[in-house]
């Protein structure tokens, strides 16, 4: 790893702390990423200099806030290579974005008998909204399976069997938050288009990690969360193809999403305003824009390479040096997420013990209960890497798991 990456750690003040007497090793990046000082500064500066409500304001602060907010939208459009800023809707995160599609597109376009296709590895946030939509409309859910075994790959041989013309919408995750699998998103979107289905890409785990271009993917909708991309909590985006957003009814009602309101009826503003009712999360949108600058300065290809290098190394070392460990997901060509089951030690005990060594892991079902059940597990431990993690931290991880194993073996 080039020393330049090591130097990045200085941009992240939170990494420089001791936890339980040990230097923090933060390996919970799939849950949320840390924030560089420049993103924190963007928040501080907004509140210290420019804070005002947007859109309806003419005074100086309000203009600054409006221009900065809309510049963040343009920044996000560039980041995802949308055709225009109007294809970017600010939401409160991936979950909100997916619910927006389920509610605004889904209720208007689905009826009894239609099929919503998902995969067996979806996060609850890309699963429960479709269950609720299916219940409201009478549409049915269908699943593209994961292959048997622990590689976690989608069973693409079954795609033609499940993706038939009765499928009106195909929603799938780009990168699994439990398995570390990277799905062939462009191929899946193309397959969806071939049967006339709308495609929804859950990019929560990919947007800050891989090069991502909505036009190259060919997706209709794409959802992401700023907090997993070095941005603040409470903000995210929905990308939607212009024609689809234009035809959709609103999501929530309120200020700023209207063109005309009367006591008994109203007309809507064009997208994206139509989907942004009320005062938006102005400060966090602006700070999110700054996070996108930061990521693009590093280069997303470079981040992806770094993530994969660390994850592949961690996978190989855990496999070799921790007896009885069960690793999920592929050994290579993977994202930074490495989930595992340590024989005889429950994930909670692993995480509590690792925390005593300053190593931050996550344990549980990772919002992936049905997949866990299919794998015969109730929970796993998970180490997830980002660009500020180092090989030395993998040493700490391996040593910690070995220590835990020794302790439990008594």
């Amino acid at each position, binding site marked *: 790893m080039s020393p330049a990456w090591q130097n990045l750690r200085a941009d992240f003040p939170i990494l420089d702390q001791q936890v339980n007497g040990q230097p923090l090793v933060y390996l919970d990046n799939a849950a949320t990423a840390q924030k560089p000082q420049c993103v924190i500064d963007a928040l501080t500066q907004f509140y210290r200099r420019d804070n005002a409500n947007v859109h309806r304001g003419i005074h100086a602060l309000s203009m600054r806030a409006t221009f900065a907010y809309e510049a963040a939208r343009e920044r996000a459009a560039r980041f995802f290579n949308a055709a225009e*800023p109007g294809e970017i809707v600010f939401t409160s995160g991936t979950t909100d974005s997916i619910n927006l599609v389920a509610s605004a597109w889904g209720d208007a376009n689905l009826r009894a008998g239609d099929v919503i296709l998902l995969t067996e590895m979806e996060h609850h946030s890309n699963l429960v909204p479709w269950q609720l939509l299916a219940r409201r409309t009478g549409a049915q859910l269908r699943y593209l399976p994961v292959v048997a075994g622990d590689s976690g790959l989608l069973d693409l041989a079954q795609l033609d069997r499940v993706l038939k013309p009765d499928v009106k919408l195909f929603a799938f995750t780009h990168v699994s938050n439990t398995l570390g699998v990277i799905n062939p998103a462009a191929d899946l979107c193309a397959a969806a288009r071939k049967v006339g289905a709308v495609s929804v890409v859950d990019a929560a785990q990919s947007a800050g990690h891989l090069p991502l271009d909505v036009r190259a993917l060919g997706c209709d909708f794409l959802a992401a969360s700023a907090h997993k991309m070095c941005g603040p909590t409470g903000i995210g985006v929905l990308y939607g193809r212009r024609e689809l957003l234009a035809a959709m009814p609103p999501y929530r009602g309120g200020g700023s999403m209207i*063109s005309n309101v009367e006591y008994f009826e109203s007309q809507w503003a*064009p997208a994206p305003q139509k989907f942004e009712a009320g005062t938006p999360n102005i400060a966090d949108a602006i700070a999110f824009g700054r996070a996108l600058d930061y990521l693009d300065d590093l280069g997303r290809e470079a981040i992806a390479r770094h993530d994969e290098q660390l994850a592949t190394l961690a996978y190989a070392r855990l496999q070799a040096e921790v007896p009885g460990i069960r690793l999920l997901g592929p050994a290579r060509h993977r994202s930074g997420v490495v989930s595992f089951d340590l024989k005889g030690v429950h994930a909670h005990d692993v995480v509590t013990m690792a925390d005593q060594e300053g190593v931050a892991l996550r344990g549980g079902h990772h919002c992936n209960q049905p997949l866990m059940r299919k794998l015969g597990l109730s929970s796993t431990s998970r180490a997830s890497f980002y660009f500020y993690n180092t090989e030395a931290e993998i040493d700490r991880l391996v040593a910690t798991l070995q220590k835990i194993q020794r302790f439990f073996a008594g």
Partner: protein
Amino acid sequence: MHDLTDLYQSVILDHNRRPRNYSVLPTANRVGSGNNPMCGDQITVYVRLEGDRIADLSFQGSGCAISQASASLMTVHLKGKTIAEAEAIYADVHRLVTTGQVDDDNLSDLAALAGVHQFPARIKCATLGWHAALNAAKGDPQPVTTEKPGD
């Protein structure tokens, strides 16, 4: 600090106080409307199109001095022009209100709109009537709304 008279030049104040062609045009064969939902500016433009020529036009509406004066100036300048000529004039006006730069020395009193570019929140006010008129002339049935980012 900008000088207020940069924005509110006497031409603007005059057209705001006494808007030209402020009426319903009984002979109109095209109507366009525009509104700025963020502020409540509202304009209706009436156009009599003969071939591709704007034989006559008028407007009515309510809004700030900039939107009313700009619409009033617009009626004066577009009367008798072909659609292509009208578009060329609007291209100049758009450049003027967004950059303050004048390309065309023939803009005459339209140059009074130059100050708008220092007040970015007001650019939409200055272009509302023009959008509505051109849409009407070109037969675009969509009412103009300014509530678009980057517009």
